[in-house]
């Protein structure tokens, strides 16, 4: 079992650009959640997908959007990047009433 996998591991983008991060959930999991972890802080919930729809959303602007595919994998898109979007982006997968498992994260640096 490969667990939760995220790609890429590191990414450098320029302000104003757009970025797409990818996540493959743990085998058997159908729910994917995305979190943003700024340096020195705890993870903050961005949104959650299951059945290919956004089900819950945290306090993030519309520049943050996502998608879930029929195979349960997911993408996080961020438009019009700001310096403040620099963070570790974590994907977590889960299934019904079980705990969430996290991937290793994607480190995004906006310059």
């Amino acid at each position: 079992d490969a667990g939760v996998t995220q790609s890429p591991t590191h990414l450098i983008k320029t302000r104003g650009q757009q970025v797409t991060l990818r996540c493959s959930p743990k085998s058997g999991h159908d729910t994917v959640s995305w979190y943003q972890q700024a340096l020195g802080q705890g993870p903050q919930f961005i949104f959650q997908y299951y059945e290919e729809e956004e089900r819950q959303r945290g306090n993030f602007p519309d520049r943050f959007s996502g998608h879930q595919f029929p195979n349960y994998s997911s993408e996080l898109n961020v438009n019009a990047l700001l310096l403040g979007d620099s963070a570790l982006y974590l994907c977590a997968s889960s299934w019904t009433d079980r705990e969430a498992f996290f991937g290793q994260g994607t480190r995004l640096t906006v310059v």
Partner: protein
Amino acid sequence: AQSVTQPDIHITVSEGASLELRCNYSYGATPYLFWYVQSPGQGLQLLLKYFSGDTLVQGIKGFEAEFKRSQSSFNLRKPSVHWSDAAEYFCAVGALGRGKLQFGAGTQVVVTP
């Protein structure tokens, strides 16, 4: 509204000594509580979880946590720390499965020889 407070930003402990990390939560319904550990630049690894039942839960790597409803606390303990326990520890509250997690700000643990 749900919230998690980890009062200690940074803790230094000697190898072999005991460790206790504090966590206080606020949650409107029955809380599901978690402790995760994060090594530098890495993702989060689940140490243990509390759903219901016995208020003392055992986790991986020799960690345990005690749920005290009257104090809204879920403190993490380890009797004897190892150098490999140096990491950041996060307490979280939320729902299972399709529920979001609310994390505390984390406690950085440094282990000295």
